């Protein structure tokens, strides 16, 4: 066995009451590729940010080459030969490649010799690792794959011996990803140590030597890649948690209420996030969409609810089209009985600076029941809010309190009360219990089941697999912008985990 390049001993890190990392011990061997897998929020990125000096651990020790070191800033990390390729590239978009490479690593006040040195160094790196890129190209004109290569070059130029890559393939095409893996293997052969953070098990199997699985802030297992299977990893990743039992009867699906056909959506950078997705949601059923965050679920529900414009495709609500590729108006969709509990309640679903009662009409503020000509019927609004507070047990029961002062669970209840009390025919719910306390989770789940039992169509998006499994009557799995499979509510965690990690779809494609 080779010596340890890095050793993490007893690392702890809390953000407020959330323990992002607890008692983490990890050994990274020199000249190997270590994979770290885990669901969203398992603490992978936090751990690596500590290693790179972006955060400080509350306790614990970092050893580089056997010696304990203090890494307080990225500078310290760089000095110890640690380089990082961030998930969101840390590049200056209107700079050239070479300018980005030398930024922060210029060796004197004038750029000329730094540039000359970087140029020859880049040539060397290109020769040795096949990392070719035009040093004078401007970043924003390069494809994403090449931008990432610049990030790798930046780290290598700084003499990185240990390279951390955070979800490196998220933005890459399969061909680009394969190229990246070739590069990583080459780097390994040259004696570099590589840490690969990902949630895609296929990548782990394809390239790593060892793999550590993280769950809820701890490392739950470390395996030699050759001696494990995707099934085992998937199980370790999602864990054998006690399924939250939700009392629900048999679904009685009725007519199709929401019908999505060939929907394609791009994000603001022009990256295709949803490609050619089709599905139906019937009255009286809950359709859950499972998937690791960032695989297009957010953009999907934004397009369906009229917040984000789709590139192509169609959506029918109760048999009538929604102008998803044109000027769909969320207000008009509400009138047609489409309610939406957005994923981001802090910036989208609520205005935190508003009083509770003001948020209880957000989006419905133009309904006649709240208006008297141009004026808001403030008493009607507040009475209405008080009624919802009582019905949904929102605490504290004060409709004049600033929304920011409610707990996460109660904030979510405010949104839910608002949307459900309009008695919509179709309900789209994103991450209904994110940041919500256990007591409220049960309440929220019961409300969603009740909606279903009243014959409404519910489309549920959640990164919590438990939640999807306990609520849904049908489960769709999204990976890389596509629906890669449909399963019944009895699907096992391992089965869904594999789909979420893109394993089956990739095998089918190959």
């Amino acid at each position, binding site marked *: 066995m080779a010596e340890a390049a890095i050793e993490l001993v007893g690392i702890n890190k809390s953000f407020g009451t959330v323990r992002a990392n607890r008692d983490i011990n990890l050994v990274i061997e020199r000249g190997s590729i270590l994979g770290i897998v885990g669901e969203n929020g398992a603490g992978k990125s936090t751990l690596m940010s500590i290693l*790179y000096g972006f955060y400080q651990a509350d306790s614990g020790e970092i050893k580089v080459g056997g010696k304990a070191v203090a890494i307080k800033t990225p500078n310290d990390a760089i000095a110890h030969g640690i380089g990082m390729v961030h998930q969101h590239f840390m590049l200056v*978009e209107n*700079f050239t490649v070479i300018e980005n490479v030398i*930024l922060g690593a210029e060796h004197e006040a*004038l*750029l000329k010799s730094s540039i000359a040195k970087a140029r020859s160094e880049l040539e060397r790196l290109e020769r040795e690792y096949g990392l070719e890129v035009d040093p004078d190209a401007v970043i924003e004109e390069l494809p994403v794959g090449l931008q990432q290569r610049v990030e790798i070059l930046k780290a290598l130029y700084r003499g990185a011996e240990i390279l951390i890559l955070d979800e490196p393939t998220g933005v890459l095409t399969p061909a680009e990803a394969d190229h990246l893996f070739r590069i990583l293997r080459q780097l390994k052969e040259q004696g570099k140590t590589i840490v690969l953070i990902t949630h895609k098990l296929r990548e782990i199997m394809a390239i790593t030597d060892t793999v550590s699985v993280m769950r809820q802030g701890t490392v739950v297992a470390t395996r030699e890649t050759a001696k494990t299977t995707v099934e085992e990893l998937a199980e370790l990743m999602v864990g054998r948690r006690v399924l939250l039992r939700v009392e629900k009867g048999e679904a009685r699906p009725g007519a199709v209420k929401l019908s999505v056909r060939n929907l394609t959506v791009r994000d603001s950078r022009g990256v295709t996030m949803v490609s050619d997705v089709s599905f139906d949601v019937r009255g009286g059923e809950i359709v859950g969409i499972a998937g690791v965050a960032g695989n297009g679920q957010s953009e999907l529900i934004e397009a369906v609810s009229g917040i984000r414009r789709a590139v192509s495709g169609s959506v029918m609500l109760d048999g009538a089209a929604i102008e998803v590729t044109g000027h769909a108006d969320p207000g008009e969709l509400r009138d047609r009985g489409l309610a939406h509990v957005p994923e981001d309640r802090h910036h989208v679903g609520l205005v935190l600076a508003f009083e509770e009662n003001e948020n209880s009409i957000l989006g419905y503020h133009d309904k006649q029941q709240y208006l008297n000509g141009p004026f808001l019927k403030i008493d009607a609004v507040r009475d209405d809010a008080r009624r919802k507070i009582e019905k949904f047990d929102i605490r504290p029961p004060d409709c004049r309190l600033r929304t920011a002062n409610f707990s996460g669970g109660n904030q979510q209840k405010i949104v839910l009360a608002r949307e459900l009390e309009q008695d919509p025919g179709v309900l789209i719910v994103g991450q209904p219990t994110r940041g919500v306390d256990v007591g409220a989770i049960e309440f929220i789940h019961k409300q969603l089941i009740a909606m279903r039992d009243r014959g409404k169509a519910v489309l549920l998006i959640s990164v919590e697999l438990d939640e999807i499994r306990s609520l849904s009557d049908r489960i769709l799995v999204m990976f890389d912008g596509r629906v890669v499979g449909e399963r019944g509510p009895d699907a096992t965690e391992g089965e869904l985990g594999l789909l979420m990690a893109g394993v089956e779809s990739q095998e089918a494609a190959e």
Partner: protein
Amino acid sequence: MEFFEALINILNSTIRVSVPLLLACLAGLYSERAGIFDIGLEGKMLAGAFAGAAAAAVFGSAWIGLLVAVLVSVALALVHGFASITHRGNQIVSGVAINFIAAGSTIILGQAWFNQGGRTPSLTADGRFGAITLPFADQLRDVPVVGQIYSGLLSGHTLLAYLAFLAVPFTWWVLFRTRFGLRLRAVGENPAAVDTAGISVAWLRYRAVICTGVLTGLAGCYMSLSQNAGFVKDMTAGRGYIALAALIFAKWKPVPAMFACLLFGFLDALSIRLQGTPLPIVGKVPVQFMQALPYVLTVILLAGFIGKAIPPRAGGVPYVKER
């Protein structure tokens, strides 16, 4: 030949009125390229003009005036930095505040110290920067065209004027050929990239606003120690804003900034020159129209009708480390 002489004259006054614009515009360039918007150029320039004139009057030396002007202007720039870098306050609000503080205190202090209705005492030759005659300018005065341009247009300006125009290639060189310039441009585009590269975002931005302070100090100095022989209240009269307009017009680049300032200066010189004289074809152009033209042009530019002015991407946004 008479037309040519008139042209030389008008271009000469164009240069004179462009100098403070140019210095202030380059000042704004350093700050805004680093991602700190600065609508307080006007105030810093005014404070510099006052401080320079006051110190020059007291000590009888233009050089001491210059030093004090720069110090005062830098101090105000640091206030802006303190509010917008350290306390992540609103950069526009902070800039507005500095303009008012400068406008009020120059008058109050001027009146209190010198009792001349807000003016500083008239400066003697020692307290001012005199005109510099370039070598052989006098001998070449009568050589047609080349000589006239040399001695009538290029020669006879003050040190600060030459400095202002030298500051253009210098700024270009700093921005694009030095480590400081590279980092400065980077921090205005993507401070997170700078931070992860192990460079302090705050210290870098502070250095940028100090550069701004130095240059606005020089701009103020030029007005009170070169163009005029002392400080008059509100003597910058909106030049800080024109400089800001020129900066946008130049798309935050040094050489275009020079041309933008010369263009706006030319409009100014022309409007003084043409007061009341009818032009061929268009007839009499109201002087106010010429005065408003820089602002109108900037609005049209901002509207995206003549190319797009894309400000530094991180401009106006305080940097918060959390991801």
